[in-house]
């Protein structure tokens, strides 16, 4: 507790929190619109989730339980360090269980377990502007959003089809929110896009370097862009998770040796561990261990 005296609760000063809180309220009122905010320097480099951390710091209170995931995992560097950051600066309860968390900060995955009403999902976003790689000028992309001029995005998806025969965009797959704003769902695999649609949880997005906050309120229409003859599809996997045998979860390839050996396991570690604890082991655990 003596350590806490050196920081304000949740690290940020109160004036910064007020500024971020005002931006969050606007972001919720205009779903999918990127609200500019005066992003602060954080004690971590850009690209490590400074936007998500600032949003979480502005929202979190002493009664919250925080979960942090990095590519679905609770135990990788980014997740561990951000969790430790909030333990130290806010002294909040932390968990790895999706169902126990009130705030989940995530880098590029949505948990497999269905989110509940009252939960808040905070995304760390590197490039919030979905049109940025098509049009580098902020003045132009802002005008395109204002005029709802999203033809360029469809051209990009069409060029995918012309070149590859299918839409080759697999992550940061653009969505349209409530029939108005085209939004970058952050570099989550497109596998997670359907989970954003009509989610009972509040979704907040923070981009620290790019100084933008945006949001999707609960029960909001989120549609992945597609064509009638090339409908949106999510990734499928030919095999179940090698550890828990789950079919229909998002899998990571884990390299096992330098001879080309690998196995596919759930990217969501909490989901996978829960299933293993329930005794849902792989059909052939020996094979997985090889």
């Amino acid at each position, binding site marked *: 507790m003596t350590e806490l005296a050196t920081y304000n609760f949740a690290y940020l000063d109160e004036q910064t929190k007020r500024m971020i809180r005002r931006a969050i309220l606007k972001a919720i009122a*205009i779903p999918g619109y990127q609200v500019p905010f005066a992003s602060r320097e954080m004690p971590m480099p850009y690209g490590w989730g400074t936007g998500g951390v600032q949003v979480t710091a502005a*929202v979190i209170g002493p009664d919250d339980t925080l979960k942090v995931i990095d590519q679905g995992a609770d135990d990788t560097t980014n997740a561990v360090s951000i969790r430790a950051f909030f333990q130290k600066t806010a002294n909040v309860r932390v968990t790895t269980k999706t169902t126990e968390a009130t705030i989940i900060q995530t880098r590029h995955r949505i948990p497999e377990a269905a989110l509940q009403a009252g939960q808040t999902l905070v995304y760390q976003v590197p490039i919030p502007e979905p049109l940025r790689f098509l049009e580098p000028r902020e003045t132009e992309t802002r005008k395109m959003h204002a005029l709802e001029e999203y033809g360029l995005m469809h051209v990009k998806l069409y060029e995918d089809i012309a070149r590859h025969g299918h839409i080759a965009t697999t992550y940061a797959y653009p969505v349209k929110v409530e029939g108005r704003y085209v939004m970058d769902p952050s570099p989550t695999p497109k596998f997670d896009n359907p989970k954003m649609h009509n989610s009972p949880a509040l979704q907040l997005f923070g981009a620290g370097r790019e100084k933008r906050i945006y949001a999707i309120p609960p029960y909001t229409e989120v549609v992945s862009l597609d064509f009638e003859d090339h409908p949106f599809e999510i990734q499928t996997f030919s095999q179940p998770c090698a550890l828990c045998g789950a079919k229909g979860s998002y899998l990571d390839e884990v390299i096992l040796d330098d001879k080309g050996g690998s196995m596919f396991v759930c990217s969501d570690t909490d989901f996978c561990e829960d299933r293993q604890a329930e005794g849902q082991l792989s059909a052939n655990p020996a094979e997985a261990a090889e």
Partner: protein
Amino acid sequence: MRATTQVFEGGFRDTVRNSQEIFRALMDAMANPGRVMPVRDLVNAPAPLAPVAASIAATLFDHDATVWSDKAIAGSEAAIGWLKFHTGLELTTNPSDAQFALISDAETMPSFEAFAKGTSEYPDRSTTLILQIDGFDGAGELRLEGPGIKDIQTFAPSQLPKMFIDQWAANRGAFPRGIDLIFAGKGALAALPRTTRISKREA
């Protein structure tokens, strides 16, 4: 002398935790339009400022927030003094310049057109109206639909601006431009973001 004491007293006892508590209620209210969020009375501000509206002010206002208030609040030296001392807000007499509007009497307030709606490029540069009302058990029940609402939410604030249904339809029609409303009742608050579609309940 008494006015001076009123000005300095009655702020948040624990700024950090109290403002977080109010903000979470505000965030949940904005994310779930029309849902009445109970809040504790955490401040004691001079009349005509009611505790919930004053605690919202203490949570959101500072020197970066331009605020317009209606005559009853602007005319009260104690209320304005309290707001200045506890938040450091920037006051304006022009509602279309305001990021926030503090309104003690919804029925005599200016029309929504008087406030900032933002621009097509920056729809966030709009006014958020904070309306002080008595409560959420009014006679006319409204039916709400839109983002944040699963099926239908009913909402019955005790006071509403004049011609509210028509004014709100115009506001909704200007989306993404538009104003957002925060209702500060006794011991509770609720919000209507510009996305909400409102109809009167059929009798």
